[in-house]
């Protein structure tokens, strides 16, 4: 009898622990969302001139002076939306890849998806001299083609292997980079600046229509990815464990990977590859949410917050204006190194 009661007490303890962990996850997610929202507001208010909230709000509704209208609606709003959506997309895509491939270093930036996107865009601009629209299309196509190739090659003989996929990705990335380097040299001098925009991420001069593919992709893909997050959690336990728990591992992986690739490719098309956002978001969001919970939602929110904050820093923190990709790169490098050392130390790499 006493033993039974002790067991009951333990079970109650555990239930409380579980509830605490769930609460922490919800809190962290909400906090990240709030942070992203505040940064969005800051993006709208700050610029060459600092406008009061009311002025910006009116301008967004189409009321106000011409100068204010232009600044708020043509410059700051697209910039803010680009940062928000691209950051979210990179964060979510990165976290999904890291979880699927069970390696924190495996993210679109490092395993060659974004380099496929970049190569596609640069090819369009430098070699075909095509306009921005074609460049977007070809950037998305480049990213997809790269991933498709990686996926097919890493499913050799119908057995998927994450490490194989990573090595294949690194090989493909090397080819894409070589191609980009060559195109940069062979190009006409005056075309180069337009192309470099695709090589290091930047929110400068983003126009609203350029973001439509990213919006469309986000609206369709993000809910799907969230819907599959339960299966993703099971896949985390390893392929065998997931299969025995009744997860269709192959199908889940294909769906989630497709989601992540669409997000990464459309985001790269809109802003260029913003270094390290996809890499950092997953692990940091996981630490904030606690309990090894690698849910894609907090990761996406963190990605958005990081991108917006870095862009604000790039605009206002230094004498020279730096594009967001350079800021995230510099911010991310020390954390990357810290993470690398820690992960190798724990044998997780």
């Amino acid at each position: 009898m006493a033993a039974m009661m002790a067991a009951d007490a333990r079970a109650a303890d555990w239930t409380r622990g579980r509830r605490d962990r769930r609460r922490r996850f919800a809190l962290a997610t909400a906090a990240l969302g709030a942070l992203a929202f505040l940064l969005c507001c800051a993006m709208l208010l700050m610029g060459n001139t600092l406008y009061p909230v009311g002025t910006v709000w009116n301008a967004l509704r189409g009321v106000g002076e011409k100068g204010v209208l232009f600044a708020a609606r043509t410059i700051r709003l697209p910039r803010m939306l680009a940062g928000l959506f691209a950051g979210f997309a990179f964060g979510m895509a990165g976290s999904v890849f890291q979880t699927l491939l069970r390696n924190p270093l495996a993210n679109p930036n490092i395993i060659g998806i974004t380099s496929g996107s970049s190569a596609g865009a640069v090819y369009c601009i430098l070699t075909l001299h095509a306009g921005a629209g074609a460049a977007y299309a070809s950037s998305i196509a480049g990213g997809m083609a790269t991933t498709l190739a990686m996926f097919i090659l890493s499913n050799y003989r119908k057995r998927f292997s994450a490490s194989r996929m990573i090595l294949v990705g690194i090989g493909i990335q090397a080819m894409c980079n070589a191609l980009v380097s060559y195109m940069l040299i062979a190009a006409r001098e005056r075309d180069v600046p337009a192309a470099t925009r695709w090589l290091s991420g930047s929110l400068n001069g983003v126009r609203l229509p350029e973001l439509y593919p990213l919006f469309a992709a986000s609206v369709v893909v993000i809910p799907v990815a969230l819907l599959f997050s339960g299966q993703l959690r099971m896949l985390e336990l390893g392929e065998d464990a997931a299969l025995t728990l009744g997860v269709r591992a192959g199908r889940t992986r294909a769906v989630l990977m497709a989601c992540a690739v669409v997000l990464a490719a459309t985001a790269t098309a809109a802003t260029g590859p913003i270094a390290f956002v996809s890499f950092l978001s997953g692990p940091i969001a996981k630490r904030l949410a606690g309990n090894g919970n690698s849910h894609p939602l907090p990761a996406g929110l963190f990605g958005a917050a990081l991108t917006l904050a870095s862009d604000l820093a790039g605009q206002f923190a230094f004498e020279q204006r730096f594009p967001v990709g350079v800021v995230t790169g510099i911010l991310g490098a020390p954390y990357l190194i810290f993470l690398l050392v820690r992960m190798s130390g724990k044998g997780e790499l």
Partner: protein
Amino acid sequence: MGAARVDAHDLRCERVVSGYDGKAVVREVSVSLPGHGISAIIGPNACGKSTLLKTMARLIKPMSGAVTLDGRGVGTIKPKRLARMVGLLPQSPVVPDGIAVGDLVGRGRYPRQRVFRGWTKEDEAAVAEAMGIMSVAELADRSVSGLSGGQRQRVWIAMALAQQTDILLLDEPTTFLDVAYQIEILDVLSELNRERGITLAMVLHDINLAARYADYIFAMKDGRLAAEGKPREVVTAEAIKRVFGMDCVILEDPVARSPLMIPVGRRVGRQDDSGPASIMDASRGSLSAIR
């Protein structure tokens, strides 16, 4: 601890050929797991015993032949439905970084959850019970990555129990464990089998443990079934010689009365002993020594 007996299911392989990368490791094996029983699969390294178990757990699609559950091909059963009937303890599962023991065990409830219905009382009870059976309830809020190998293994078994399947397949449940834990885990498993009638099938390295705990043994060699039957029928000097290529003597386990296999090897007797022990002496002597 509610001890309702579970349904018996008929999990069988019919002329199954399976393996990796187009190479057959298991060749034309037909087995049928005795319902409500404990079966052990034994055999030398690389004989295909793990592959056979994984094929039964539908982790590997057979190249030919069929794995059926109650007469239906396992491939045609919905994965979640199948996962409510057949569970598996994988050999090397991955621990997500920083996950708490209770939550990891809770993941075993996945096949019993619906998409838009949250965590229920039943889930709660099943997890608490599974942790109780494997005595990991005290660890519920600890992080899995900080546990010892033996504790981890018990957590994984608890996860498989939380799945509440009628059949449980275990791929070397006793690896990484010292001998006391091996016995403890096998004892717990055989209690589960006795009290609830869960059908167990496990790959075991140790022939003597297999003989002690299993009702039925499948011995494999080179991808084929070399012998099957009750421990007394399979653990014989002749069969061990055939399967493992090794001479041995079979005694009776003084504790469990199951067959006990003693390898002969080349080093018989010690120099400092009073005299070289003859094999026959040993086998004759042991029984009388115990009685």
